[in-house]
């Protein structure tokens, strides 16, 4: 399906079309009943050449919801999450985030980028900038905040992730866990409504995983909407409202942690969980 041709003369904000709503989530946790959907994904396909990485994915995420995405390697988890801030462009279907549709429109793209923060497996901090500059960069160059205001905010964020004393250092001088916390602070600086995490602890030594998970848990408790690709089952069980299981590019099963860890429905889910637990 293609997006409608909007008349170029009137730049009306794209609306959520009613005809293509996905079927509502099977099991929405109680604390989120009545919350509006902040992410709506319907019938999304993604191809790399003639390899289909996403196959008819439809789901919705409510505001303040914590979603954990599971799946074997190569199942399209990263591809999916990267489609949500358009680091990848989807080939078919619709993605609507906070009322803004993701399409070729550059204005929409900029709006989305300021709504959605992203944390990468490899941190991807800017190695030539100090920790402080890493965090203030977006504030100053995209939000056009004065330097002092941006730095004040950055210090606050560093306090929140527990490393205000590292502000003047360069990323290479920090441990992996500290780097990832800086990356989280950098994403938070843009005051996003949604945070995407792509395996945030996979590149970390075991003793550093907890410090990053703690920050993420605190973030979850503060009401952030979060989508987390992770293999940390403890985090999934305790923090997640809902789990999505992907396999071969398709959304195979969704449900609460309780549902997943006690009575998964699909064979593939059972197999995956038995391997990972």
């Amino acid at each position: 399906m293609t997006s409608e041709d909007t008349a170029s003369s009137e730049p009306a904000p794209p609306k959520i079309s009613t005809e293509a709503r996905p079927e509502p989530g099977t099991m929405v946790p109680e604390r989120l009943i009545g919350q509006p959907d902040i992410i709506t994904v319907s019938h999304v396909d993604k191809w790399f050449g003639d390899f289909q990485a996403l196959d008819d994915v439809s789901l919705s995420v409510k505001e303040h919801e914590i979603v954990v995405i599971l799946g074997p390697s190569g199942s399209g988890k990263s591809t999916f999450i990267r489609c949500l801030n358009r680091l990848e462009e989807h080939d078919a279907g619709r993605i609507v985030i906070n009322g803004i549709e993701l399409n070729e429109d550059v204005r929409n793209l900029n709006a989305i980028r300021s709504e959605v923060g992203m944390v990468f497996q490899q941190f991807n901090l800017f190695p030539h900038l100090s920790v402080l500059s890493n965090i203030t960069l977006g504030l100053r160059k995209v939000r056009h905040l004065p330097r002092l205001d941006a730095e004040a905010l950055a210090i606050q964020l560093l306090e929140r992730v527990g490393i205000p004393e590292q502000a003047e250092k360069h990323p290479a001088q920090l441990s992996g866990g500290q780097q990832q916390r800086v990356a989280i602070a950098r994403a938070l600086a843009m005051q996003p409504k949604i945070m995407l995490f792509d395996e945030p602890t996979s590149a970390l030594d075991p003793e550093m995983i907890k410090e990053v998970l703690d920050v993420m848990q605190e973030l979850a408790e503060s009401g952030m909407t979060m989508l987390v690709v992770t293999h940390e089952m403890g985090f999934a069980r305790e923090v997640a409202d809902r789990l999505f299981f992907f396999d071969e590019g398709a959304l195979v099963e969704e449900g609460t942690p309780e549902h997943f860890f006690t009575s998964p429905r699909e064979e593939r889910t059972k197999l995956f969980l038995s391997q990972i637990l």
Partner: protein
Amino acid sequence: MTQQLPAPQSQRIVLPPHRQRARRPRSVRTREWIHRNLFPSTAGTALTIVSVTFIAALTVGIVWFVFFDANWRVITDNRWLLFAGSFPHDQEWRLWAAMGFVFALIGLSYGMWSSLGRKDHLFIVLTGIAVILFMGHGGAAFWSSLWFLLSIALLFLGYVIARTIGHDRARQRSLLTRVILLRFAFDDAFSLRGGFDKTVPIQTRARAVRVALFPTRTGANRIVGGLLILALPLVLVILLAGGGASMRELDGFVLNLLLAPVGIVGGLVIAIPLAIGRASKLHAIKWTCTAYIEIVRGAPLLGWLFVALFILDDIIGGDLIIRTMVVLAVFTAAYMAEYIRGALQTLPHGQYEAAQAVGLSRGQSLRLIIMPQALRISIPPIVGQAIAIWKDTTLVTVILPLRELKGNADSAIAQSEFIPDRIEAYIFVAVAFWIVAFIMSRISQRMERAQGIGER
């Protein structure tokens, strides 16, 4: 204190950490060092003796040649010819002014972003002495020596000023603060009731004046950076503007010193968009940039200088020196673009994605994230190319009717009385080129080390 001692080498005695300070006396250690490093075995001793003999003979030979054998009058009599050739004598002050400006700027930059080590001081002093000796030899160069000394003084002055500013921790200082500071320093001095308040020490006043008048570190960074960018045009203005020399009168070493920076800076300015263009997704742009790079690299500089001499004359005309500058920049750009492209390819793709995810536009992420890192990585090959083009400025003599240092040295030894002195002339030329190349490579090392901290 280091906790772990280096693994014990053959005969080194390892002391426990708490006894590190109470080591054997220096004389004993020196003796041990000599034994270990110079006379470890029979073969080692033989090698040491051979090389010491060789080095000693070489040194004696050089000293003998430089101070007794050589006839340096070929240089000192042709001082002006070698240095500035046909540059008008009555405009000499322009050369010194330009030199003072450049030296001061070098001092400022070093003070701002690096520091002069003991080796740098030694190098400056030795070079200074050598230059003064050449000027003094044969007399009549009193004023030139003075101007040169003044330039070196400016270098150190710039260095000291930049260091002083570097200590200033403040990022910004408003005009109001500055006025208040100045008032504090001079208030009672101008009051009618009389005289200085003796309780405020003069040092405090001086400090207040300094802080009030000097830019902050951030401001100074901008000023020195701006001056560096404008340095080349400013030097040309100093030399040429308002009845100065004409383009064609740029000659001798001065010409080398102008051609190379134009080639290097111009080359870098062209190379950056070329490198980005070659990585572009738009085929038209990509192919254009690739064609430029491959065609330019396909022919030697000598060939392109022919183009400057003949073909460009028909197309754009203009002064031959300007055409030569264009060719040098265009030629250097092709090589530098490839180095930068190589650096771009080594940058992890995550850097682009992180920049996007933060919300930077494509232009912003190139300017703020990608290019700074790529340029840092490519400092060593770019400086290598810069040194190459510096030496290649001598090629303009070969085919163009332009005369630079090497060409003028040739004319110096063509004078009948100096025909036997070609060795002296060429050694002088070589040393002159080496000094500048050495400065470039020092600066490059400094830049690399300063960047080291940001590396992965």
